[in-house]
């Protein structure tokens, strides 16, 4: 009923990419070209990061997906990663290379906190 522009925009992008091929995909800005998540995802739903704590091995790319009607961000407490604002259905990916515990939060709604634990498997 409420077809919002972002979803429509994302759809248009997918169609363009598939029609023109990999070259078009490579030329897209990094934020728009966030691939379909192959690694683990963290869903933002009802102002909660889920799962709140995620354990991965070094080299893993984690993707956050905002499923709320309200924009959110994903910002590391130590500023090692920081998304732009994510509107509904928008994604942010970050590849964790070094072992450690990464606390992060939404800089707009700071009561929203989460953690990624990176350790060798």
């Amino acid at each position: 009923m409420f077809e919002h522009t972002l979803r429509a925009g994302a759809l248009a992008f997918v169609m363009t990419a598939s029609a023109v091929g990999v070259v078009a995909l490579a030329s897209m800005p990094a934020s728009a070209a966030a691939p379909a998540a192959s690694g683990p995802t963290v869903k933002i739903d009802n102002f909660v990061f889920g799962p709140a704590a995620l354990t991965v091995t070094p080299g893993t790319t984690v993707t956050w997906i905002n499923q709320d009607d309200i924009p959110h961000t994903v910002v590391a407490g130590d500023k090692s990663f920081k998304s732009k604002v994510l509107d509904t259905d928008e994604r942010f990916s970050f590849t964790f290379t070094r072992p450690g515990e990464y606390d992060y939060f939404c800089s707009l709604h700071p009561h929203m906190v989460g953690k990624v634990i990176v350790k060798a498997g």
Partner: protein
Amino acid sequence: MNHQDTPGDDRRGFLKCMAWAGTGALWTVSGGLASSISLDQAAARPPASHAPAKGFSFVQLSDSHVGFAKPANPDAAATYREAVAKVIAMPMKPDFIIHTGDITQLSKDQEFDDADQIVRAAGLTVFHVPGEHDMLDEGAGQAYLARYGKGSKGAGWHSFDHHGVHFVALVNVVNLKPGGMGSLGPEQLAWLEKDLAGRSSSTPIVVFAHMPLWTVYADWGWGTDDAAQALTHLKRFGSVTVLNGHIHQITRKVEGNIAFHTARSTAFPQPVGGQGPSPGPLKVPTEQLHSMLGVTTASFVRGTEPIALVDSTLTA
């Protein structure tokens, strides 16, 4: 909010016309004490109590979220336009408008442009503070400051005087800490202390900021971590009125001489703290939406009456 529908009575007509928007409250400042009154209470009073002879009134608009287009409001610009139309229709022209933030949904230039164009129709000066939705540009607030930050400090805080009332605009939506709520920060608190120093304790003070300056519901971040320090500087004043937005519903609290009030949004309602899965938009049936949006009108009367606030919905 209930109100009597009695055609032919100007005062009731006035109140009725204010019974539209969520972000409406009638503020009357008088005798140095601020107080808010409900629409029913206002209707029961003699006309003089909210028709100040030597005082003034102003309007609080909040959380217009221009650009929002999802359930329960497919067009937040349209409801903002309705709110401004209600201000224009007020028989007693307010002196100015205070907007307590979240002007836009995503800080886009087009959203700011649209919001400015809508509120400009009122022909009144608008004083702003940013909400977190107004700081989402690449420059983290530069777009807001370029439009509204002239003469302000830091992230946009400022103060001004109007007919003997001192107004302080605070910013509590930047540099937020993980796990925390709103934040004023040491630099702004130091500025506030200086700004208030030397003012007579009998000066009526109106403070406005986006997020509540008292803890409404901590689990949803509805408060300001260092508000207590700000209130320390405000305690000695005989009349302090604190106006906030952010939570898209009316809440009130009185603590000593400080009266706290949050306004409705002109865009969409939110649930009562803790009474829902999240502080996201409350998806109400279309026919209910206008009764949950609104404006606040404040009237300041010199004399013995306290500040009067009337919240009115957008229902016609």
